[in-house]
């Protein structure tokens, strides 16, 4: 088991046990951080392929709304099923949209993904059944049939999130080490070469797009359950922008990087809300600029440098 997976195991166990003695609000925050980290993990896979999706909010929103609708339409209450439903729905839509999107690159890929997310946003805001900007309260989830109460209420969702993150990190990590995963940077470097070696670049991108969508759907579903309510802003392009920001912040060095980045981002947001509530965008913008100019490989590269220096 290599370094990343070892670190993953340690972190997950520590967090799972530690959550029993941590105040509710920290567990809540951790749930959000990890859930959003999932979205960024998906973006990271695309980023390595040289693509930036400015529309992950589409799948993030689909995951959230899937939870709400499943509760309303099917009376589904089990947390695991709800998150799974959100993930699968997001993936299914990505399979369809991917046929189109996989043909584009660079700016056009970014813009088209943006367009799709704005289409969802426009539909949601104007739609009466999905009630505009206000509504959609999400009922508290159940866990394996048990109603939420006591420790389970507070920690159940967190443990589910940890489980999802474990699967995701393990999966992406193995994926990136596999022949198909190596096609991320290969495609970014030279698409023609990949085609001439015999693999369809479009197909590879399509697969990565679906992976990113599934992860975003899972993240959205979890956040909806944690926060207890859904609104169309989760599909607005600025939400996508924030995810892109965290992707740059994290770097593409490891499947664990997005979660570190997500934690830093939420900490940043917490401080900004507390001490400079009217300057959030400014802080984001300045930070992003500094990152791109001076730390383009993300914060994970700092960690990698230190690890390399530590080794003999």
């Amino acid at each position, binding site marked *: 088991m290599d370094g990343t997976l070892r670190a993953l195991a340690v972190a997950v166990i520590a967090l799972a046990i530690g959550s029993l003695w941590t105040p509710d609000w920290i567990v809540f925050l951790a749930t959000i951080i990890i859930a959003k980290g999932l979205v960024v993990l998906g973006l990271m896979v695309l980023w390595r392929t040289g693509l930036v999706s400015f529309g992950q909010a589409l799948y993030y929103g689909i995951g959230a709304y899937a939870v709400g609708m499943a509760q309303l339409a099917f009376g589904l209450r089990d947390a695991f099923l709800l998150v799974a439903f959100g993930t699968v729905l997001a993936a299914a839509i990505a399979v369809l949209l991917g046929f189109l999107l996989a043909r584009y690159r660079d700016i056009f890929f970014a813009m088209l993904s943006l367009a799709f997310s704005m289409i969802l946003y426009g539909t949601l805001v104007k739609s009466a059944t999905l009630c505009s900007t206000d509504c959609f309260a999400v009922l508290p989830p159940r866990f394996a049939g048990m109603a939420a109460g006591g420790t389970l209420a507070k920690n159940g969702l967190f443990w589910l999130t940890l489980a999802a993150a474990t699967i995701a990190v393990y999966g992406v990590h*193995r*994926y990136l*080490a*596999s*022949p*198909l*995963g*190596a*096609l991320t*940077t*290969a495609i*970014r*470097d*030279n698409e*023609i*070469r*990949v*085609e*001439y*070696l*015999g*693999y*369809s670049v479009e197909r590879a991108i399509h697969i990565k797009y679906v992976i990113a969508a599934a992860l975003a759907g899972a993240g959205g579903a979890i956040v909806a359950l944690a926060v207890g309510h859904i609104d169309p802003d989760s599909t607005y392009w600025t939400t996508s922008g924030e995810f892109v920001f965290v992707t740059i912040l994290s770097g593409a060095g490891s499947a664990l990087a997005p979660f570190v980045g997500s934690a830093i981002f939420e900490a940043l947001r917490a401080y900004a809300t507390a001490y400079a509530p009217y300057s959030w965008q400014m802080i984001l913008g300045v930070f992003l600029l500094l990152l791109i100019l001076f730390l383009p490989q993300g914060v994970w590269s700092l960690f990698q440098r230190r690890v390399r220096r530590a080794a003999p």
Partner: protein
Amino acid sequence: MTALLAVHHLNKAFGSVVAAKDITVTVGDGEVVGMIGANGAGKTTFVNMVTGYLKPNSGTIEFLGRDVTQLPPRAIVAAGIARSFQIPQIFGSASVADNLLIALGIAEGGRLPLWRALRSRERLATVERVLDHFGILAYRDQAAGLLPQGVRKLLDIAMATLRAPRLLLLDEPTSGISVEEKFAIMDTIMGALRAARCAVMFVEHDMDIIGRYASRVLAFAEGTIIAEGAPAAVIADPKVQRYVTGVPEAMRRAAAAP
């Protein structure tokens, strides 16, 4: 006996520019065919059509008896035709070994195994063996984007051979390489390919190299093949001298003398 490659009446025009006019060529198993011609004569267009990058306006391309004219490059590669590029197409940010590793990963299966790591001991051994054959083992850990031109070319060709192609098209394998090194590099390439029993078609501007390595030569001019045959005969052909190589100084003076 079916020819390895059978090209019939290929035509390709870009607007009013005729890049290929009624090209008919056959290549047999294991042959080494040189392609000469001035710039813009249609050699690279020919290579691009055979490898699927361009679709001809009309005409057919048959490989091992199968019509591959309309297939995309990756299908043609799977069928057994590989190519190298005038400007080497490599993965700049990966190491030389990784470049081959990626190529190997793709070559090993249509459905790439998801849970098997790419970097395995056996694959690395294969990669090192191939690098050694091409004489670039010393560069194995260097980033491909920082390689000297000759090494890039060899890497490009090495990647193309990983799928054990039956036909390999080399687009100007020695262009950009100094005169002293040209023969060394061609020796390396041909040595590695001979072992693989692969037919080769290569585009070349240097007549010495053509003479030394090709058993047959195709001369291109303005989109057509103006001469075909053994190297010496083709190079001496007056049409070829007019359109491709130029008339040797001695002959011109002799012709001009009263």
